[in-house]
């Protein structure tokens, strides 16, 4: 499963228990429980999945099966400023791939990775529904529209803190 090993604190375990209980510990609420856990922890490491499985009386394999099936769930922590590049068709035909390449070059990471200092992570997504602004890049909650490869350096500069 995940290569990162973490130790859950008692308060983390209690939090998972609390989330599971708020959905009545019902197995068919698994996806809702995972959504809440990811909201809380930022990602879903193996250790969290194990507690979820125990609380819902479901096999760990089933929990892992669901986590790995849906692209919204992630098992690696995201950077402080998660960068998402829209690769929906509208953005793609307006040159999103070149923008993505520029981010990869500038940050020296691939899609799905986080920079060594934990500052940026890079992901692609399919359509944010702002096709009028294509190509679109999201950094955290902020949306950048009509991004050209030349803009990439300046966008990253904004997060130099």
């Amino acid at each position, binding site marked *: 499963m995940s290569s990162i090993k973490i130790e859950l604190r008692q308060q983390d375990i209690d939090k998972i228990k609390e989330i599971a209980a708020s959905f009545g510990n019902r197995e068919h609420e698994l996806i809702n429980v995972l959504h809440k856990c990811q909201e809380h922890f930022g990602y879903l490491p193996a250790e969290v999945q194990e507690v979820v499985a125990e609380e819902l009386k479901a096999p760990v394999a089933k929990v892992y099966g669901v986590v790995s099936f849906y*692209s919204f769930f992630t098992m690696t922590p995201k950077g402080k400023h998660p960068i998402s590049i829209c690769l929906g068709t509208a953005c793609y035909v307006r040159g999103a791939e070149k923008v993505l390449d520029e981010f990869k070059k500038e940050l020296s990471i691939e899609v799905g990775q986080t920079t060594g200092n934990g500052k940026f992570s890079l992901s692609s997504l399919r359509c944010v529904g702002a096709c009028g602004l294509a190509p679109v890049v999201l950094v955290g909650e902020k949306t950048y529209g009509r991004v050209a490869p030349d803009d990439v350096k300046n966008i990253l500069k904004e997060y130099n803190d």
Partner: protein
Amino acid sequence: MHLLVCGGTGCRASESAGIEAKLKSELEKRSLDQSVQVISTGCFGFCEKGPIVKVMPDNTFYTQVTPADAETIVAEHVVKGRRVESLIYTDPSSKEKVEESAKMGFYKKQLRIALRNCGFINPENVDEYIARDGYLALGNIITGMKPQEAIEIMKESGLRGRGGAGFPTGLKWDLTARTEADQKYVVCNADEGDPGAFMDRSILEGDPHSVLEAMAICGYCIGSDKGLIYIRAEYPLAIERLKIALSQAREYGLLGNNIMGTEFSFDIELRYGAGAFVCGEETALIHSMEGLRGEPTLKPPFPSESGYNGKPTNVNNVETLANIPVIYLKGAKWFSSIGTEKSKGTKVFALAGKINNVGLIEVPMGTTLREVIFEIGGGIKDGKKFKSVQTGGPSGGCLTEKHLDTPIDFDNLIAAGSMMGSGGMIVMDEDDCMVSMARYYLEFTVEESCGKCAPCRIGNKRLHELLDHICKGNGKLEDLDRLVNMSNVIKDTSLCGLGQSSPNPVLSTINNFKDEYDAHVTDKKCPAGQCRDLMEYFIIEENCVGCTACARVCPVAAITGERKEPHLINPAICIKCGACMEKCKFDAIIIQ
């Protein structure tokens, strides 16, 4: 007076929330905040020119507004009654200012039924929906109609499912109504996963109550008291507005027990998707709602017999539902008078790509592609030549010049080798390579295939590999036959709609752009100049002044030449990174 500010996702991304706040504070400063209301509405559709502010009742349509313009709008328009000329839309062909949206090329040919309230009402206020006859259809039906009578009207209207397949809605309701069970479910499919399509999101953000009302009507017809909306977790604004709408509807007794004092009870819950395209397929969606991996199962049994928790379930798409309340208010005859023989009503399209007016449009079925692209869409960006239009997303196909006069409806698009799909419409120009386009869609399918059945899991992967070979100049002539054969096998043998339609982008591009495939395979050239491995960089002698900038930036020393003499690129060494072209100030480097 009302100032309507677009609160759709596109406009929000360009600071429409800031405009709203600024308008409010400017009004307050002048003590006008009691007489002039600022309302955040759903999407107006004209995303290309967003953010949009509309002034009512004089119907002025301001485009590309910035927060800094808010003061001018208040000082000039609100206070002095003078329109702000600089913010008024200029028609690109006549160069005339057009103040009213109804007179703009973008809106002229549109007929808004599903989007009737988007951009008109405040989606967070149920009173505004009610003021536009909201919940009237539900009231009429539950107090004065038998379920079967209401189903008959739905059948007569000829409404077909807007999610992609076009299954008749009335028939679906009838099938679920006829199945006996102690519990039935109404499900709204709001898992819009088609890249480049955002109509469902805009309806939920701009007019959530129309979907809730239609679900309640469906519940009454099929004998269900429980509705579920399966929505993408990636749509936070739509989720927030749905939550507000649900609590307001419950507060008014429009949802819950004994609606409007009748025997009929109905309530709705939200369920969140987690980013899986295949969950748009109804059996996969149902499994996902049950907390499982979203894998489809064979039909039959259809969800109308055995769906959520094994109970009869009626699944309708957001846009389908948004049409329903109006059909009951205006009648089946009115609805079936719009559109073509077998496709009634209108269809919402997300128009995007290399087109001047990107946005969300709604046109009567039977409108031609030419009207949509050149009249509503305002033609191709930067005066380039039209090449292809892709409809139906990853399940659809690429149509060409010769299809432009085809009237759009479910059956015509299938006959032309594409499909309606959920309504994504991406326009491409001469610079787009159709082989790369097919590869792009296959990449999507490979990523989104759930992996349950072999034809889709393995077949699409092989298709993608072949296309990748061709784009990189390693394709052979027989690969084209293999692509076609394999595509047909995948279509015939896949378990669900995803695999059955995933080869469409390949087949349609081979059929319509055979010469482009030939050029890639035999001449090792990409006519559109997009496939990097098939291009060569050249220096035009006459333009080169010998500044040596290119030679210095070249990472592999492929460029040679004396100072102040024309330089030369050695294609055997060149890695086609494009750094030289970026650096050249004299436009001396081109790609061929």
